[in-house]
């Protein structure tokens, strides 16, 4: 549903004099294809270009070279923008800077109003989207009284209400505490599994991408690696090259493997490792 071909994004970095001013390529010939219903993760360190890429998916930025197609519609044509923004919705990093309404329900209605959804449908859409993020009891709440995680869930509800085909979480968990992070990721997975919404998760937290169907690793404006979590997390050195780090439990599993235990790699969750250990333990006792 999303196709990126040869995408270049550049900006001018102003120096003290005119000669110092240079053109920097934030994205340097990126190719990518994302299918409907996939759960995609795009990871990379600060400044790797992952967030810039995300903004191309929704027509917030336009390609300097190359093309981005959303369901065959190129983002470079302004006439398509309305349709594209109904298809791909975004949630951004800072919870405070994306809520417009004075109450949760007013905020959710903001997107619906823009998309010219008839009023008769709004009530129902707001109900369902609040349910999807488990915020029904906060419908009338003032955003100022919400926690960071609740604000992000409100933003997700605002997107879901539009019934998009794809939801982009642009570092939406970066400012949250671990519990809130897990909750937001849980909701994203649910939307993906139950409603078939394509999820594009932009993050630098490795523990969030364990369930992705496919991971793209960005580095210096290019897609440096891509593959399933199983492929990318097989060896710790691979990701360290790109200033990324594996979750502690994944590293622990490597150490155990090195010690000679038959661990199936990669391990992404404590539960998985504990279960594997149980099997090994029981197995040895039976022998």
């Amino acid at each position, binding site marked *: 549903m999303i196709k990126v071909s040869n995408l270049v994004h550049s900006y001018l970095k102003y120096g003290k004099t005119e000669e110092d001013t240079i053109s920097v390529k934030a994205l340097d010939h990126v190719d990518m294809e994302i299918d409907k219903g996939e759960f995609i993760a795009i990871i990379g360190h600060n400044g790797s270009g992952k967030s810039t890429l995300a*903004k191309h998916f929704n027509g917030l930025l336009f390609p300097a070279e190359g093309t981005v197609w959303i369901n065959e519609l190129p983002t470079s044509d302004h006439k398509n923008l309305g349709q594209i923004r109904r298809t791909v919705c975004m949630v*951004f990093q*800072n919870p405070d*800077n994306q809520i*417009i309404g*004075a109450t949760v329900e007013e905020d959710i209605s903001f997107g619906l109003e823009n*998309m010219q959804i008839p009023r008769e449908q709004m009530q129902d859409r707001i109900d369902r989207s609040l349910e999807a993020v488990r915020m029904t009891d906060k419908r009338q*709440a003032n955003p*100022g009284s919400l926690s960071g995680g609740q604000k992000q869930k409100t933003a997700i509800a605002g997107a879901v209400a539009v019934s998009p085909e794809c939801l982009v979480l642009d570092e939406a968990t970066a400012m949250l505490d671990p519990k809130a992070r897990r909750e937001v990721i849980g909701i994203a997975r649910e939307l993906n599994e139950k409603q078939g919404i394509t999820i594009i998760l932009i993050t630098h937290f490795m523990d969030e991408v364990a369930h992705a169907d496919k991971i793209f690793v960005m580095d210096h404006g290019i897609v440096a690696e891509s593959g399933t979590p199983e492929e990318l997390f097989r060896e710790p050195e691979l990701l360290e090259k790109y200033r990324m780090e594996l979750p502690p439990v994944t590293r622990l599993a490597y150490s155990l493997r090195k010690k000679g235990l038959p661990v199936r790699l990669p391990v992404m969750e404590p539960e998985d490792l504990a279960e594997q250990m149980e099997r090994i333990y029981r197995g040895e006792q039976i022998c």
Partner: protein
Amino acid sequence: MLRDITIGKYYNKASVIHQMDCRTKLAGTLLYIIALFFVENPIVYIPCLVYLLILYRLAAIPWSYILKGLRGFALLLLFTFVFQSLITDGRALFSIGIFTVSQEGLLKAVRLVSRIVLMVLMASLLAYTTTPTQMAAGLEKSLGFLEKIKVPVHEMAMMVSIAFRFIPVFIEEVNIIMDAQASRGVDFHSGNVVKRMGKVMPLVVPLFVSAIRRSADLAMAMEARGYTDAGSRTRYRELVYTSKDRTAYLVILVMTSAVIAAGLLV
């Protein structure tokens, strides 16, 4: 000091007043304030106050909020009172040193202070019972006719409602920046005027930068959510008058004419 500003703070309840059309409330507030200017005799302010208190009761706003709304104006009220009672000539009541308080002065002071108090309380009631978004929608619809002469009413209403939404965010931010700079040795509470002005930069520059960053973020978020211009939007809440509003208009009209009549006659 900045921690307890209440202006623009919506008090979340589902009362009759909250459910009314914003335009009804705007009209009620406006007419009430106009009517107050017809009143000369302080006695008439008493029923005006009673009317106001009944409205607060109907809106289920706790009494403590009445004082809360006034606290910011305490200094202004005190100043007005003292100033008015001193500068007005008339029959002397008593003197303190070179200052003489006249009967006319005292009357004028009472009148002025009562007016301000009632006006502030009515305006606060509007703010407590109406979200900035509703307010913006109400203003937009009431002033919609100005669009014909190319006044961007919708954009202005949107700006106002966003400004309101961000007041608490910025107050919080000011507090954090002040704490942070105080931790680097800035003493915001001493020194003469020139010195204090110098200390404003470490506060103002970061706040300004943050305002720019936030507005850029917000503009992007709004664009991503499909906001373009006014014409092509539907509305979640249609402003429709219900029987509640019709009753309210009746009450407002009766009250306004009664107050004006009393003001002219008494």
